[in-house]
């Protein structure tokens, strides 16, 4: 799959398994769809509570129930017009890598960065593993410098001071 279109329907998605479970590719796309829909409960339902999450650039690591739910909730709250655009998916039977652009206009503080109503567009790649129809881990790659630059942060040790 290679598209720059926002995910609006999963009807075309490969990955629905015969037993009704979905593989990593389908779950990854569904996760993007639900985050774009600001459906945090729907997103959470795709992920095991003890799934390992690693949003390394944000310094967020741990289990989904302890760290991931808050991260997604904060993301959705801080960017009311959040949009995730999927560009490509590489997947095997257990894992999927999705390349996405995360866009939105800041409407609240995020990761300690004061809200200045600035716009972000940050290219990211997420590695998602799945088993038995649920996401078992998420590792995300992006450049935090790009996020800081777009939100007006000048120094890595003073992220609450924006200009």
């Amino acid at each position, binding site marked *: 799959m290679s598209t720059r279109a926002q995910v609006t329907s999963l009807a075309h998605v490969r990955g629905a398994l015969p037993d009704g479970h979905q593989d990593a590719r389908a779950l990854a796309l569904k996760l993007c769809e639900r985050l774009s829909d600001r459906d945090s409960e729907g997103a959470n339902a795709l992920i095991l509570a003890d799934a390992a999450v690693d949003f*390394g650039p944000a310094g967020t690591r741990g289990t989904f129930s302890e760290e991931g739910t808050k991260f997604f909730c904060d993301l959705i709250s801080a960017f009311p017009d959040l949009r995730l655009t999927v560009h490509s998916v*590489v997947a*095997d039977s257990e894992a999927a890598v999705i390349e996405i652009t995360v866009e939105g206009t800041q409407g609240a503080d995020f990761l300690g960065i004061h809200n200045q109503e600035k716009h972000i567009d940050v290219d*990211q790649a997420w590695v998602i593993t799945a088993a038995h129809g649920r996401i078992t881990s998420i590792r995300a790659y992006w*450049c935090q*410098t*790009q996020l800081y630059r777009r939100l007006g*942060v000048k120094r890595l040790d003073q992220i609450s001071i924006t200009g």
Partner: protein
Amino acid sequence: MSRVDATEVVNSFFDAYRTHDVERMVDLCNEMARFRSMPFEVWRKQRVIRGDGKANTVGKILWRGLIESFPDLTNRVTKIISDNDGNVAAEVVISGTQAKPWSSVRSQGRSFQSPHLFVFHVNADGKIDNIRSYSDNAGVRAQLGCLDVD
């Protein structure tokens, strides 16, 4: 190209990177191979310069620059995900100790370790024709002792 072959090409790419053999890295790509380093962007007054171009131009310059600034630069491939269409994603930890300035970061002799994700496409001739890399420059700059965003 079979899945195994595409993965082998990508592993060869990182073997060459580990031995600082940039010519070999480029030889594994076809002449028109695209390269984009997602974190690379330089904001000027009128435009933004991105790390986007060909592997044998932009890629070569960025890889050589890293090797020159970090003479012990190395990499460790931690996971590879591939499909049957020549797409290969590789999670790789890149590390090194700074000996010379790197971009705007002056050398304080510090070391960094940075998780990267590369997405390759290997064509039917066994050549890489597309590379995109994702990593966190903020993490690298902080480890090197540079706390300015730009």
